[in-house]
Structure formats: C-alpha cells, structure tokens
C-alpha cells in the first residue's frame, strides 16, 4: 500500500537572482494505491502527473506532505534509509531507447541488480543466472536469444519488455509506468499493455499508469481508480468507468471530448466540452485553476478554489462548485 497526503512540489527556476519564478508542480495531492491494485493519473503534459510518479518512485524529492510505503513514512527517514523502501516501487520509463545502457548487454543489465538482490536475500550466486532467464520469460522474451544481445539489436517493443524484466529483478510491489507505450509501434502497444495487466494478475504487483490516453489507462487499471490532474491539483478521482461515463468536472469533460472519434465505428457525443481558451500557466489564478477556460464557470469560481470533495448524488470525488454529469465520449455504433 502506497499512500500520499498533501504532497507539494515547487520547482524554482534557476539562474535568475531577482524575481526567480516558481512553478507549482503539485499543490497538495492525496493518493492511495492498494497492494496489487491499480491507479491511473491522466492529464495534459505539465500537469504534474509525471512529477508525482517520480516522487512515488523515489526519484524526486517533495517539499511538503507525506508519502508512506506500507505504512512507513518517508519524510521521517533520512534520505539514505529511504532506498530500501523505494526499491519496492520501480519506474518503467517512457523511452525504451534511453532506459537501457547501450554499452551493456541484456545479460549485464540484468546481472547487476540480481547480484545485489542475491546478496540482500542470501541466495547463492547460481540463482542469479536462473532468475535472469526467469524474468525474461515472464515478460515474454526468449532468454537464449536475448541475453547476449545489446539493446540496439532489439526492437522498441522488446526493449520495453527488457526494461520491465529489469524492474522485476528486485521483486517490486508496484510498477510506475509513465507513458510506457507512447514511443512504441501501434501494433505492439497492446502487447506491452497486456503484459503489464498480466503481471498484475500473476505476480500481484500493483501498477500506477501515467498517461494522457484514458483508453489505455482503462485497459490496464479498469478496476482501479482514475486521478484526473490539472495544474498540480487532482480535480476528479474515482472508479475508471464512472469517470469515463459520467465525468462531472469540466476539465475531465474537455479531456474526454478531445479523444478522436473513430468515425465509422463510433458515434460522436452530442455535447462535447471545449475549453474557452488554451492553457496559459504563466497566469496566476486565485480561484478555480480551470475557471478561465471553463465554459460553465460561475461567480464563485474566480474567487474561491474548489477542493477535492464528495457531494451528494455524485459517486466520485471532484473539485468543482457546479458538478454536473455530461456524457462526452463517443459511443460504439453497435450501441447507438
């Protein structure tokens, strides 16, 4: 179980002595990802979803709030004592081309963390080679052909599988997949996604999926929670299918409206939500962060910032003063 409460992260732009600009990447985010469960963060680039993922994987420090892994608070620990806890959370990077060291063979890449793991768990050295073959088989690769290869000799899809195998060498409890398929050929994407889904079922690893593509989030973590993040704030949170079918926050609605419609297979929604203007992060907002772009804004929105809350008659949490269900996604022809 990995939980976070009120996580805040601010990036300071370096270089300028006077008037250094601060970028609020996260403005107090709560999350909870149960063991073996799934969660998805969606939002536009720069919304803070990647920063949050990196904080959860221990690759980035946070300024305020609390992250706890299996009940152990990370803030209370000294940085060097956090590593054994963050080991349980492994990151799958977006770019399988830079995630593997081009000068090392797959065998060498897997050998190093496995040797470390063998030392930690008191296993014999012979276990290392056995396990290397095992994790490769787990991700659907043939150890005999892959082990002696260099990364450049593998295709993008195979590389991403190796990256997942490497993460599995340290027996993680959770995988953080940050846009893990966006750089992979379309016909191979689903293979990687179903592998992650499969690992959830077989090994009980939980998966945190970070993406801008709601459909892939649903594919992996359909039974989990969806967090819609906008400018460092969670604006809607709840069961994936609930939010897809009946989003209440206008930002979620515009995000879902923007998904391309497969004309010929799908019937577009009659009431798509389109933001009034494009995102301008340089502007300061006192009230709701989405108010300037929101077609449904009311008087309260400019003055007061809505916080994530539960209101009557809405199954999911949301941060909107005027929540209203709107069905914005395209429907399959067969249903219409």
């Amino acid at each position, binding site marked *: 179980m990995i939980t976070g409460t009120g996580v805040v992260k601010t990036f300071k732009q370096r270089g300028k002595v006077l008037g250094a600009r601060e970028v609020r990447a996260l403005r107090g985010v709560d999350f909870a990802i149960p063991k073996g469960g799934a969660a998805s963060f969606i939002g536009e680039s720069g919304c803070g979803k990647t920063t949050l993922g990196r904080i959860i994987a221990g690759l980035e420090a946070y300024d305020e709030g609390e992250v706890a892994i299996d009940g152990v608070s990370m803030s209370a620990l000294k940085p060097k004592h956090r590593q054994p806890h963050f080991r349980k959370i492994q990151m799958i990077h977006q770019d399988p081309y830079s995630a593997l060291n081009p000068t090392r063979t797959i065998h060498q890449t897997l050998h190093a963390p496995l040797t470390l793991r063998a030392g930690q768990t008191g296993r014999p050295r012979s276990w290392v080679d056995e396990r290397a073959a095992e994790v490769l088989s787990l991700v659907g690769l043939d150890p005999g052909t892959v082990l002696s290869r260099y990364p450049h000799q593998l295709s993008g899809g195979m590389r991403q599988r190796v990256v997942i195998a490497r993460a599995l060498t340290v027996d993680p409890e959770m995988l953080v997949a940050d846009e893990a398929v966006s750089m992979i050929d379309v*016909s191979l994407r689903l*293979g990687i996604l*179903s592998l992650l889904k499969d690992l959830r079922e077989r090994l009980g690893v939980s998966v945190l999926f970070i993406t801008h593509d709601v459909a892939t989030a649903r594919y992996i973590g*359909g039974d989990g929670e969806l967090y819609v993040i906008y400018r460092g704030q969670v604006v809607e949170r709840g069961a994936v299918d609930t939010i897809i079918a009946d989003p209440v926050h206008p930002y979620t609605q515009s995000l879902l409206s923007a998904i391309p419609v497969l004309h010929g297979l799908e019937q577009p929604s009659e009431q798509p939500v389109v933001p009034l203007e494009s995102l301008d992060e340089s502007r300061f907002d006192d009230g709701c962060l989405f108010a300037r772009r929101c077609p449904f804004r009311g008087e309260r929105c400019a003055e007061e910032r809505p916080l994530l809350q539960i209101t009557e008659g809405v199954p999911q949490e949301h941060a909107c003063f005027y929540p209203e269900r709107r069905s914005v996604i395209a429907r399959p022809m067969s249903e219409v």
Partner: protein
Amino acid sequence: MSEKAPGVRIGGLTVVYKTPAGELPAVRDVTLTLEPGSITGIVGESGSGKSTLALSLLNAVQPPGRIAAGSVEIDGLGDVVGLAGERLRKARGRHIGYVFQAAQNSLNPLKTVGKQLLDLGRSHGVEDLRGLVREAKELLSRMGLDGARVLDSHQHELSGGMRQRVGIMLALVLNAHLVVLDEPTTALDMITQANILKIVREVHAERGLTTLVITHDIGVVAEVADRLAVMYGGRLVEQGPTREVLGSPRHPYTRGLIRAIPRLVGDIDEAQALPGRPPTLVTVPKQGCVFRERCPLRMDVCDDVDPEAVAYGPRTVACHAVTVKEHA
C-alpha cells in the same frame, strides 16, 4: 486565389535506400490518387514507408534514398519525379506546403518567426513582402493566434500547439494548395490535438486545399480524413473512404490494427494484440506478401506472390485471402 485544389496521382512509385545489404525498397509499387479537395490520411507504423512516400511528393527523398520507379503527377506541375534544381525548389512552398514531423522543433531557434517568414518570401522571390506578412497574420488569427505577437516571437516563446500552427501557416502562406502534414499532432496534448485537427479541417475547407496527413495514429486520421490509406512494409495494403475502412476493414493488417486499439467503453478484452512485429527495411520479405508473418489468413500463395491491389468499389485491398473470398 483563382487556383484550385490540385489532384495528385502517384503511380507505381518505388523508393529504394542504399544499405550495406544492397538497395532495399522503403516504398514499393505504390499507386494512390489524391482527389482534388480531399483530405487523405496515410496510416502506418515506423518503417512502413509513409514518411518516405510523403517526401516523394516533393521529390525530396534524401540520399542514400532515391526514387527508383514510378511517377508523381501533380495538377499544374506535371511529374514531380522529373523536376530538379531551381524549378523543384520553387515548386516546394509555392505549390506544395509541407508541415514537418515535429514541426515543434523545425523552426530556427535564433530567429523570430517573422524573420523566418521574410526569409521564406525572399527565397521564393516574393515582391510584396508586406502582403506576405499581412497574409501570415490573417492565417495566424484564423487559427486563433495573435498574429503580430507570434511573428515577433522566438521558437522558445511559443507552446507546442502554437508552433504547430506556425508550421501550418508557413506551409500555406505562399498560397500552396497541396499540403502535406507529417505527424501533425505527435507530442501534443489531447486538447491541443483536437484543436489542431479542427483547424486543419477548417482551413482545408476554406482555402480549397488538397491535404495529405501522415500519421501512426488511426484516431487522427479518423478525425480529419475523407480517405484512409494503410501502409505496411513499404506497401499500400488497403485504402478507401475512412468510414468504410474503419467500419469494415478488409485487410487482415487493418483489422488487427483497429482491434488493437483499447476502447473507452465495452469489454476490455475485446482489444487484441497483433502478434509479431513490424518489419524493418532489412527484414521485410523480398517476395510474397509483406504481412504474411503476422497474418491469421496466411495461405501458401502468400509466400511467393505479392498480392495485387484489387478494387472493390471505392476500396482497394491487396490481400490474397480477401480476393479469394470475394470471388468464392
């Protein structure tokens, strides 16, 4: 603005690349017609030859690649394959506007957009530079940007979506009526993508263009294109009206590709992965069907004979299995 949208007829086009293993075809025997005033989308994965095909439209395939056979007839220009030197340079920009892949990064970081616009005008011998700037501002404001401000900006001052729109403006400002957009929305956010696609559709209609969109994302084509062409391993495997191809795909690759898209509603497990992986220039089969290794309908004939594109009304499909079924 008396010119009208040109038609394009690509006939038997083959583009080869020189490699240590000899000359290998990146595009092989592709025949495709872009109707005047239509938006055509070409979908393919990496190595399918879609970008090479698009570059052939400008006769801009760079060595070690070369156009080995075929023709690209553009109304008002003739066969582009035969053009060279100054005439070719003038044709690019004047007749054909090209919005490059990752247009976000194709601007010169050291010059303002306005300076680059003037450079473009001068290199094409535009006399009325004031008129050019006026036209650029008009286009930009049509796309929802503040023209004067954008022309005064450097690349780093513009967001990804704004740069993409600047790219479209630079492709159209010389009054080109044939526009090629290579991966117009890659690396853009969903909302920005939807916005850009809307602009592409509207500008296309208002200015009377013939548009070609190259992408790996079926969703993008589904949103904008009238016709859809699917490429695989350098071959055009299926083409037809977008709705028809998406609604009832015939080629096993098209079917597999559409089935591999996770959906927002319905049974999650309906999405099925395509087995195998796309071929590269080196691994693509030299004879027979390029898709047979991954094909569920593979027959003996597929190993030796490259299937011909057979027309079924407005559609063409290049697959032995489909041909057999249709004639049965």
